[in-house]
């Protein structure tokens, strides 16, 4: 082997190593979410169909797998384990509210509003085990949830005053850098946070933050404030994942027809004796 050939091989090897290093750096940069895709008005483009991959809807807090309450459902009705989505895993209930939470948990099979296909409220709509779609326009961001066909409109410019408390609340949004911040008020006291009986009052104030973390994931954070129920504000956070199927589309989950027997069955005409 001549010295020239050896030198050329050495140079190629160095170049290859440098290329690999650069590629790795590039991948890392993307994963950290350096530069999100943008809409025509220069905002991060949050359009898409998103879904969580966690068990927050069963229980916001850390929980081991446990049996369900309907014996005939067996493993199908069991609760999958979860590491929890609450910062510090502590939900700071006031004493009376802590007792109410316990009671809710005991009565969850009948008392959880999800059982009756009621609108889920915020933030629960985000982490139910169904996809939702963000439809982002400059003046409005529509959140359309597959569960119960629930929707809410986030007002980005001039928000009208909140007319009356509602199930999905009154949402007003703005951008803080690349984060969509949504201030949610006007929520009624009829919804829960999860199937474990975590609850709130009509004084609930939620501040949500949607931040791109990679092309196909967002970070979702929700700060919960409700002086009638909690001794201090608390926070949950979780990733939202993009549904990447080529044909991804929200389907109908109009659950009214799945709960009518449960809700009205006792009022059915009985077979004549």
């Amino acid at each position: 082997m001549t010295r020239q050939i050896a030198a050329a091989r050495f140079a190629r090897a160095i170049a290859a190593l440098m290329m690999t290093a650069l590629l790795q750096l590039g991948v890392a940069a993307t994963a950290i979410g350096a530069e999100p895709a943008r809409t025509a008005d220069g905002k991060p483009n949050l359009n898409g169909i998103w879904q969580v991959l966690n068990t927050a809807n069963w229980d916001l807090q850390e929980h081991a797998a446990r049996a369900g309450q309907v014996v005939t459902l067996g493993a199908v009705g069991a609760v999958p384990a979860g590491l929890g989505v609450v910062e510090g895993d502590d939900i700071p209930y006031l004493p009376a509210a802590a007792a109410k939470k316990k009671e809710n948990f005991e009565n969850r099979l009948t008392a959880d509003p999800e059982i009756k296909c009621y609108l889920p409220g915020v933030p629960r709509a985000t982490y139910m085990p169904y996809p939702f779609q963000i439809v982002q326009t400059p003046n409005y961001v529509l959140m359309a949830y597959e569960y119960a066909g629930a929707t809410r409109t986030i007002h980005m410019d001039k928000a009208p005053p909140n007319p009356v408390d509602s199930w999905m609340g009154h949402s007003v949004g703005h951008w803080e850098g690349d984060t969509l911040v949504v201030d949610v008020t006007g929520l009624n006291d009829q919804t829960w946070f999860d199937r474990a009986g975590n609850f709130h009052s009509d004084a609930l104030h939620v501040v949500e933050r949607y931040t791109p973390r990679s092309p196909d994931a967002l970070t979702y954070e929700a700060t919960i404030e409700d002086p009638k129920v909690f001794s201090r504000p608390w926070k949950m956070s979780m990733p939202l994942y993009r549904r990447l199927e080529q044909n991804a589309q929200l389907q109908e989950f109009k659950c009214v027809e799945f709960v009518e027997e449960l809700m009205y069955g006792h009022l059915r005409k009985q077979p004549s004796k």
Partner: protein
Amino acid sequence: MNRRYFTSTDGPAVMIAVALLAPLPVAAQTWTPPRTADGQPDLQGVWDFRTITPLERPVALGTKEFFTDEEAANFEKQENLRQDRDKIDPEVGGLMYPPGGVVPYNEFWYDRGNKIVGTKRTSLIVDPPNGRLPAMTPEGKKRADLRAAEQRETQLGRPHADSWEDRPLQERCIVGLNAGPPMTPGAYNNNVQLFQTPQYVVILNEMVHDARIIPLDGRPHGHLRQWKGDSRGHWEGNTLVVDTTNFKRETSLPNSSANTHLVERFTRTGADTLLYEFTVEDPTVWTRPWTAAVPMRKSADPIYEYACHEGNYAMASILAGARAAEKAAEEAAKKGSK
């Protein structure tokens, strides 16, 4: 056009102006709609489709396609009086309510508007040219007869209610009375908000609150049947065309079937007006396709949450009422046999 500018002193000039403006589509063609950032005609906003123009032209109007101003004013006056639920004595009956029946909602609940459409058409149906629904097939007649009979029983306070499944989808909060597809002006909540992104158009009706998310990427219809069908959209010039098939059981139109193929067209006709047209092809029910045109007006008001199912105390009450009536009849029969 602002009608306040025309006073009685304008006389013939007004008539000429009205005659020139009458074929609205011509005016519409000359108006250039604003565009979204990606170049689509911008249909976005909240649109109000309240009107007292009937779907079908009253038979007495024959071939009359448009009202004159005077006729329009007269029709509005009479129709507003006729529709006024507070003026109907249940014992006497009126509108569609038979004597001795039930007038279930008073005027408080209505928000149907009090004007006919701006085009002064005598019906929302524009085809067939007589402004009326086409002849029904034998299956269509069967559906219509059954529906009329059930409605009559409901109006007489004897609703068919062995279970919720005997009640219309609207009462069950599964589909909205007027939300469609296709959208048709109704008793209240005649509002829709349109959203656009480069890939989708979204139709959000206030009535029963769910969003119809329509892909614009040319993907074929799916296979699943849904209550609101399966919608696909594309642009034809400045018109958004939405094609819907795969309805689960029926559309929100009375007597319709799952076999419906619906084509809706949305065209901006002015800064504050949008023309919504739809063609219904349902060979199970009607012997030919038919088309209606519903002009919409821009609204400054937001869409509110209409939590229909959550507040549906009526369903339990209807069923409980039917059971109570049965019990009373049973007891009366027992007394009679003693």
